[in-house]
């Protein structure tokens, strides 16, 4: 936390800004990449969104007033960028978001950047059946073990509601996995 405060201070000073940006990218690129990747599925799309996310972070860092943690603020930007990207892609392809999501999962078997086994593929299919908020909550909790408190700051939703979403998502996934 202290490191984060120091980094933030450096990001706001002209002299230390450039070096601080490099540190920021180095520190958070991996976590943000995997967070984005789980939302947009394809590597190339995740790469585009990650680039946009960092550019947005740089452009808006002066507006960040420290009310929340720097990392939850960045996760919020990454989440919004991912959702905006998917909405634009669906619009461009003239399909619904659900259809886009479904086709991404169907194409996962042929994706060179997916090396999951049968159960991993099935889990991705189960996640794809969930409403978007449940997908986000499940991925953040199950794979990244993000605390509900932080998740609440990222998704701007109450902790109680997020816990309920996770519980429902878990039950749906279990039902889906046991169906076959």
């Amino acid at each position, binding site marked *: 936390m202290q490191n984060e405060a120091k980094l933030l201070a450096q990001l706001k000073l002209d002299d230390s800004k450039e070096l601080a940006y490099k540190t920021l990218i180095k520190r958070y690129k*991996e976590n943000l990449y995997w967070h984005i*990747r*789980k939302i947009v599925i394809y590597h190339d799309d995740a*790469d585009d969104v990650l680039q946009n996310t960092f550019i947005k972070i740089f452009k808006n860092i*002066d507006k960040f007033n420290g009310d929340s943690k720097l990392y939850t603020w960045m996760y919020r930007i990454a989440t919004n960028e991912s959702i905006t990207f998917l909405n634009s892609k669906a619009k461009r392809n003239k399909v619904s978001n659900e259809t886009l999501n479904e086709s991404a999962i169907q194409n996962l078997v042929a994706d060179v950047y997916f090396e*999951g086994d049968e159960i991993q593929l099935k889990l991705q299919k189960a996640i794809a059946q969930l409403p978007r908020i449940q997908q986000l909550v499940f991925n953040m909790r*199950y794979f990244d073990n993000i605390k509900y408190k932080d998740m609440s700051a990222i998704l701007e939703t109450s902790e109680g509601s997020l816990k309920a979403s996770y519980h429902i998502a878990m*039950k749906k996934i*279990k039902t889906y996995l046991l169906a076959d």
Partner: protein
Amino acid sequence: MILNKANKNSPFKVPKDYFKNFDTDFFIEQELKNKVEKTGFKTPDGYLNDFNVSIPKISKVNNSQKINNKYSIYISGIAAALVLLFMFSLPKKDNKEVSLESLESYLLVEGNQSDLLSNILTLDELDDLHTLNVSSSEIENYLLHNASIETLLID
């Protein structure tokens, strides 16, 4: 003894079905995590090590934005002046269309003019006008010698 009673009547509550859900979530999660712990996604070799973002020069961008803003005020001012100029100098399309109400009120007001032929001439004289044969050269001569061009233009 007193402590036992206090425990039984604890003022704390938990959300409905909390313990039931806790067990369910915990066991399903553990069961699933034994089978799947990772997503299965991977990146191209060395992608994350090589990842970089071309850092925009924020401070310079801000300065140029300030300059642009300054110019944009002038440009907006000029544009607004041009719009006003065109608004007042060009005839409105709406003028071409005359509503029935306007036409009616025009006829009512203008119809009372005392210099209308119908007010000056009798019915017989008006009938004679239909048979009046005057050549264009005669009209031209009359106007040349009797009418004032300035007065006609003003009228």
